[in-house]
Structure formats: C-alpha cells, structure tokens
C-alpha cells in the first residue's frame, strides 16, 4: 500500500523522527498530564455531554475549539520540524534547548504563577546563555555555517520533504496517542477517569494518527513553500528567464555576506535551527493567537481562582502596548525623541472623561444626556478622542519642526508638563485634583458593560491592539513609513530625495498621538474615571523605556518591551512585599536582615524604583539595542561601529548581483 510505504521511515529520517518526537512529546506530556490539558478536555467533554450540568455551553465550545487548535498546531509543527531540519545540529543540543526554553517555563509558571514564573525563567535564560557561551568557548565549538551549499531541490527531493513532514506528524501523533492511552488506562485503573470517557479515549486513540497524517500533508506544504524551489515546476529546469528563477535566487544567496546569509537562511528549508525558522514561527503565532483569544475561558483551568483580577491586569498591560507602539512611531520610525508622550494620553483620557460623565453637560448647563445613549457614544468618542490627541500632536509638532535632537526632547517634555497642569488647574471643566468620577461604561449593542467585569475590556483591548499592530505594520511599509525612516537616518539626504520634512514630521507626531488618544479613552472607560495624577513625567519615561528596552523601531520588540516593563513594574515589584511576607522565601530573610542591620521599617515597596532602576541600567548595559532589535539595527550593530558610511557597510558592492535585496528597506 502506498500510504503504508510512505509511513515507514528511511534510516536517516529515523534519527530525525526520534529527535523531534522526543523533543516535542515531553513538553506536551507535561502540559497534558501534569498541568491541566487533560482536565480541560475532560471537563469540556463532560460538560458538553451534559454530565456536569453547571457550565455554560458557550464557554465549553470555546474551550473545545482552543484544544482542537492547540493539538492540531503542535502535531503539524512536529511534521514541519522533521521536514525542515537539515540535521546538522545535534540531538542533545536540541533537547537541552527545549528543556530550558519550554520545560523550565512550563514548570515555573505552573508552580509560581504566570508573571513570577516568567521572571524566574528570564533569569535562568540569562544564566543559560552565559554558561553556553562559556562552554562553547571552552570546547572551541563554532556552530556550522548554515548550509552554504543550499541547493535547489529537484522534484524527487521535494517529494522527500513532503514525506518527511507526513511521517513526522503521523508518528508524533501516534506516539502521543499511545502515551495518552496508557496514562488514561492507569487513571481508569486508579478510578480517576469516569467510565463514560472510555469511549472518548478509544475514539481519540484512533483519530489522532489519522489526523496526524493529514496535518502532516499541511505541514509538508508549509515546508515546501520555504525551499529554494524551481519556479516553474513543470518545465523541468529550463527556466532561464532572468528575474526570479531558481538559479538567480541561488546566486543571490551566494553573493550575500555571512551576516545576511544567516538572516536569509533563517527563512529557508532545510534549516539548521528549524525551531527558530520563520516557518515554525507561523505555528507559534497560531498558538499565541489561539491562547490570547481564548485566554478568559481557559484561565480558570490553568491558574485557578482569581481570573477576573488577572484579566483586569492584562487589560491594563494592553493599553501600555498601544502607547508603546504609538510612541514607537515618533521615536522609533521617525527618530524624534519625545519625552512628553503622556500629554496625548492625558488628552485622550480627559476627552472621554469629560464627555462620558456629567461634567460636560454640567459646565454647559444642559440637561444630562441619556446614560444609555452616552454609553453607546463611547465608540464614536473613541475615535474622536484619538483625533483630538492627534490634533494636539500636530499642534505640538508645528513649532518644533526647526528644532533638532534634544531641543526637541525638552520641548516635548515641556508639553508633557504643561498639559497635566492645565487639566489640574482648569478645575471648572476637569474637576481639578479630584479628577472625574462616574464616567459611563461603554455599551455594546445594547449590553451595558460594567467596571467590575473585565472580560469585555479584555476583548476590546485585544481588538484595539490588533488594529494598532496592523496599522503600524502597514504604516512602516508604506511610502510614509519609508519617509520616516529616511528622516531618522539622515534628514538632509531625505529632504534632497524629495521627502517633505514638514508634513512627514507632522504626520509622525499626529499618528503617534492618535494611538495614545485611543489608549487614553480606553483607560478612562476601564477605570470609570480620570485622575490627574496618572499623567506625570515618570509615565512618559516608562513609555520611552518600553520602546528602547524592546528594541527601538521594531514592532514585535516594542510589544515585548511594553509587556516586560509593565510586568516588572506592576506585577513583579508590587508583589515583592507579598512574597517577603512568606517566612519560607529568600526575600523574607533579606528583609529581616535589612531591618535588623540598618533601616527600620524597611519594605520592598520603598525600593521599587531602585530595583526598577537597576533593572533598566542592567538591561541597557547588556542589551543596548533592545530585547528584539529591528533587523536593520541588528545589521548596523554587527557592522562597523563608526558613523561613516563606507562600502563595507553594504555587504554587496553596488551593481553586483544581489545588491537589490541587500539594500531593501524595512
């Protein structure tokens, strides 16, 4: 039988299969059996069958969808990895990597909770990187060059890649099914598994390998798209029509420098480090999106009680992401240092604050607007708030156009100081130091939200973040985005290339402010009020730190930076005292030592800024380009360090083949 033959691995494929199946099966097993994977499924099934009788059906359906996506993605990922691996890197190396980067976080998050677990992971990772570098140095080990002889795959090899993907997924899911079956039988023997679920166990054991076979075909297609391929598959190789033929693609790759070659090779199949290849990143993205999307329903399974509190915290983290992305337009893309970004946030917040409460109608001596109508008006006002902020962004931008560098920084800083003072002192309109309270919650198709249920806000902020990321990516790649980058790199050169400095800079200020206006209106709506204390220079500094720590100009970097800085500041440092209250923790001992040997009444709350400052300095010293630098900056840093542009800054001599791809703007 053709299928059966296709599933029997050849000798060299067998090693790859073992490498990846073991590598992936262990973390999946940990997730499924030790954490709550199995519990989630069983609860969902029992609930759907009406045996638990308590749960809401919609929640269970969401859980089921999440589980389906999760396992399907992992199975397909296994196939892709087997297909894409070049086999140049060792098996043990990979297993250690998976242990450090997947197993350790799993266990730590499981035992310590999400934020503290991840923080501990970060420390372990840093230690691991350091140790690995030491070990490599001691062993005189240099990683192999990524397949300098990358070949165009012929039809036979392409079939081989596809077969390997199918085998990978099939055998992975078969192994998973087998392990799962054994574990479930044990559970059953101990009496922890309801008898009704045995039917499910049987069905699952049969379905998994079949699903694996088909998902493997999918994974094979993903892998094949990333091979250096003959463009016109049917023509049998005589595709000498210049442009995009395989020969030119190959010579293009060969002519690149090592740096660029490594970068390009990251996208291709076969790949030395398939876990880090852009193909695998697609699968991670699916996992991440599914996780974030269904988080509210799976949170109780993963972390137990307190879902609402956590969701509220993540909602707050969300508007910091929007703020950081907005500031990234001004600072990262256009290179205009803005130290007063909080001003636009304040403007956005007060716009909805004044309109959404009785403040406006009181001041104007009008009858109050019907609360139901007002709640529905949140949606148009979200845009209005953003536009008002953008307008002020342009107004601020206008007088600063002639300023350069840090003169600009101080003017923006000044604006950031003026705006909160105006809101504070014009108390006839803004209620001064007391702030505005009683701002209406938004309503959505007639359903009024309240301040206490965080789930709608969680989805709202997700939607807003998705919108922000989408517009940011599109802006970066647009004509305007390239003009911003040109200004950042060299204003004069940009101007002489026909970039209109005035409008381009004003657009940067306006767009950046637009997003912070959105974040501001959201902030007010979620909080149900505005307080003038939330808009200080310190906040502007935090936003800037998010952008710089994440990696200036890099969209994924800035998102990560925002989340990292927010978690450090709001979760980690805020919890130090709680942890120190537990007599078994290290912090308890440290605290006691400090109190007995020095400072009376010491609490970790007193040194929050100190710890945060130390973290800032340390991150900057060891990673000045940010956690995830943009590709452009990474390349700059690997090249010469001095300012002058010389031919060496380009990998390819102008005119040589491959020059076009070298000077590609991003």
């Amino acid at each position, binding site marked *: 039988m053709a299928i059966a033959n296709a599933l029997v691995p050849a000798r060299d494929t067998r090693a790859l299969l073992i490498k990846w199946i073991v590598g992936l099966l262990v973390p999946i097993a940990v997730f499924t059996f030790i954490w709550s994977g199995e519990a989630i499924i069983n609860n969902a099934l029992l609930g759907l069958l009406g045996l638990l009788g308590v749960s809401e059906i919609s929640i269970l359906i969401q859980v089921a969808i999440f589980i389906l996506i999760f396992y399907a993605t992992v199975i397909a990922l296994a196939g892709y990895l087997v297909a894409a691996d070049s086999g140049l890197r060792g098996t043990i190396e990979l297993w250690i990597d998976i242990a450090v980067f997947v197993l350790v976080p799993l266990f730590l998050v499981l035992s310590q909770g999400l934020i503290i677990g991840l923080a501990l992971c970060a420390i372990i990772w840093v230690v691991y990187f350091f140790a690995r570098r030491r070990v490599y140095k001691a062993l005189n080990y240099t990683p192999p060059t990524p397949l300098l002889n990358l070949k165009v795959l012929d039809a036979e090899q392409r079939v081989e890649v596809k077969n390997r993907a199918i085998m990978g997924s099939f055998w992975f899911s078969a192994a998973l099914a087998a392990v799962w079956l054994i574990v479930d039988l044990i559970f059953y023997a101990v009496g922890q598994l309801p008898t009704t679920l045995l039917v499910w166990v049987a069905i699952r054991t049969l379905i998994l390998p079949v699903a694996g076979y088909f998902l493997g075909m999918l994974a094979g297609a993903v892998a094949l798209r990333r091979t250096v391929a003959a463009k016109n598959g049917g023509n049998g190789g005589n595709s000498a029509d210049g442009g995009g033929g395989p020969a030119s693609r190959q010579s293009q790759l060969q002519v690149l420098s090592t740096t660029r070659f490594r970068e390009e090779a990251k996208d291709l199949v076969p790949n030395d480090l398939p876990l880090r290849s852009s193909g695998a990143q697609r699968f991670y993205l699916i996992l991440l999106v599914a996780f974030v999307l269904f988080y509210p329903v799976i949170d109780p399974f993963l972390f137990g009680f307190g879902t609402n509190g956590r969701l509220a915290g993540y909602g707050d983290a969300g508007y910091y992401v929007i703020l950081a992305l907005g500031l990234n337009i001004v600072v990262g893309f256009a290179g205009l240092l803005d130290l007063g970004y909080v001003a636009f946030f304040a403007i956005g917040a007060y716009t909805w604050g004044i309109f959404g409460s009785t403040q406006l109608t009181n001041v104007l001596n009008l009858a109050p607007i019907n609360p139901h109508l007002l709640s529905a008006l949140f949606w148009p006002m979200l845009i209005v708030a953003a536009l008002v902020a953008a307008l002020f962004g342009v107004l601020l931008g206008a007088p600063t156009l002639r300023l350069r560098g840090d003169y600009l920084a101080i003017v923006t800083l000044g604006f950031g*100081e*003026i705006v909160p003072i105006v809101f504070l002192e014009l108390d006839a309109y803004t209620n001064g130091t007391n702030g505005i309270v009683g701002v209406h919650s938004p309503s959505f198709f007639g359903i009024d939200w309240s301040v206490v249920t965080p789930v709608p806000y969680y989805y709202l902020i997700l939607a807003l973040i998705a919108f922000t990321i989408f517009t940011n990516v599109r802006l970066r790649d647009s004509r305007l985005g390239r003009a911003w980058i040109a200004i950042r790199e060299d204003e004069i050169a940009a101007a002489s290339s026909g970039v209109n400095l005035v409008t381009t800079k004003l657009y940067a200020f306006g767009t950046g402010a637009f997003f912070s206006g959105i974040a501001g209106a959201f902030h007010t709506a979620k909080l149900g009020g505005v307080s003038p204390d939330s808009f200080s220079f310190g906040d502007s500094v935090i936003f*800037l730190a998010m952008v710089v720590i994440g990696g200036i100009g890099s969209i994924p970097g800035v998102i990560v930076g925002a989340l990292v800085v927010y978690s450090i500041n709001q979760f980690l440092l805020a919890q130090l005292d709680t942890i120190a209250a537990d007599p078994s923790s290290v912090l308890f001992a440290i605290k006691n030592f400090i109190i007995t040997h020095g400072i009376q009444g010491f609490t970790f709350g007193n040194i929050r*800024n100190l710890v945060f*400052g130390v973290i800032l*300095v340390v991150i900057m010293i060891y990673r000045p380009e940010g956690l995830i630098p943009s590709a452009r900056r990474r390349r700059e840093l690997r090249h010469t360090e001095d300012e002058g542009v010389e031919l060496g800054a380009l990998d390819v001599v102008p005119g040589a083949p491959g020059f076009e791809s070298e000077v590609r703007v991003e």
Partner: protein
Amino acid sequence: MNLTLLIQELVIGLTTGLIYALIALGYTMVYGIIELINFAHGDIFMIGTFICISIFGAFGITNSSSAPTGFNLVGVLVVTLLGSMVLCAVLGVVIERVAYRPLRNAPRLAPLISAIGVSLILEDIGKLWKGITIVPFPQIFPQNTYYIGPVSFSSVDILVFVVAIVLMVALQWMVTSTRIGRAMRAVAQDREAAALMGVNVNRIIAITFLIGAGLAGAAALIWGLKYGNTNFTLGFTLGLFAFTAAVLGGIGNLVGAMLGGVLIGVVEALATLIPDSTNGGFGLPHGGAPWHVAIIFIVLILILVFRPSGLLGQQTPEKV
C-alpha cells in the same frame, strides 16, 4: 502692577536662578561632551543636600538654633561646601563609570534610559536615607535683611550670589584657559580627533562628570541655606528646571546655561505675580503660582521657536 514688587520678585528670581544655573552647568557640560541628557544630575544635587545635612550633623548642628558663630561658622561652611562638592563629584564619576561608559558606543537612546534608571535609583536611596517627608535643612547662615530703598534682600542672598558667581567664573576660566579645559573642548568638538591628538578621552569625560557633579554639590549647600528644607523629589523638580535652563541658553554653552538659569528663576518669580481669575478679571485660575512650570515651558517653547538653538547656542551648519 507695583514696581517695588516687581523688583523684589526680580531679586528673588535672580537668587533662585543662580542656583538653577549652577546645576544647569552640570547638564550642559555633560551634554556638550557626550551628547547625553544626564537625568541623574538633579538627583546628585538632591543627594548633595542630604550630604550637607549629614556633615552638619557630624558637627553637632541639627537645627538653625544650634548654629555656630564667627570663624567657627565660616569653618563649618567651608568644610561642608568642600565635603559636599567632593562627595557629589565622586558620586558623579562612579555613575559615569558604571552606567554610561559601557554604553559609549551604544545606540543613542540607550544611555538616556540608563540615566533614567540611575535617577530612579538615587531617588530611592534618598527616600531610604531621609524618608519621604520634607527634611529641614539647618539654616545656619545669619539671616539679616538689608534694604535698598523698599527692596529687601537677605545675607543668604549675598552668599548665594558670591558662591555661584565665584564658581562660575572659576569654571569659565578653567574651560577657556587650562590644559584640561582645552582637552574638554577638543573632546566635545571631535572625540576621535582629540584621541588621535593624545587626549585621554575617558579621563576627560570622567573629569567633566566630576566637575559637573561637584557644582551640583555646591548648589546643594546654598540651596539648603537659602530655603531651609529638602526632599527626595527635589532632584527631579530642580533638575527639570536646570535642564530647561541649559537648553534655553543653548545646550553645551556655559554662559548660556548661566543666563538660562537666571532667566528661569526670574520667570518663575514673576509668574507668582499673575492674579487669580477664578472670580473673573485678568489672570489664571488659582493665580500664577500653580502654573509656574507651565509658564516656564511656554516661555521656553516661544524662545526656541525663534532661536532653535537656544539664546546663545550657535546655529551649527548642518553637516552633509
């Protein structure tokens, strides 16, 4: 408006402005030489005020009434001034060594974030040291009031004036007429060329931090003697004004920083004369005082609109 009141506010503004100017010198020197906004500078000043209180404490002076007199007073003041300057200078150099030197060739914003981090660290050290309340500063210098016509000024004002002017003149002399000063200017102009001419760049940058922080230490003493209190947030507020002063005068320019400091002091003092408009009439809600930060920055923005490089800053031709 009353002319006497106006002149009176000008005198107040001049004294405060001179202190701002002393702090601003630190910003402007550091900026001139490595193009870094040293956010930690204001906090060094704050730590300086605490150092002064501790030195006073070592002499047994804990409040204004236990002040010594005559030569003892002069001795205590000189020792405190020198002690504060030296300790602040050391602090400045240490900060440079730990937080800025490793980032000499890093992307431009990395040292800025590092500076912000150091500023947060210093603020919390101040908080741990003296608590979060306002700390009284023993005003041991005699507070005699003198009159020129109806305008009054105190002996402390004279002290501030003398100390600030002497230090500024000394700094100006050092930068323009000594070897180190010449090396500093060379590094500021072109670091690599200076290194090629045999200037030890790292040393010169360290000296710049040393001098700037030392001036902040001096400013700390005269601030305390003049206003009689300090607080761990003082560094931020005064640092902001001082940095604004540096920019206003043309960042990197010493005379400009002095001019900017005085100008900001005067604007701040004059702002308090603006009447309250809550019940109608000309002015701002709640009077000018709560608005003074906003007014300072509006003045700054207006000046920069017409002189984009500050009052005395040179319009550098753009390099191609």
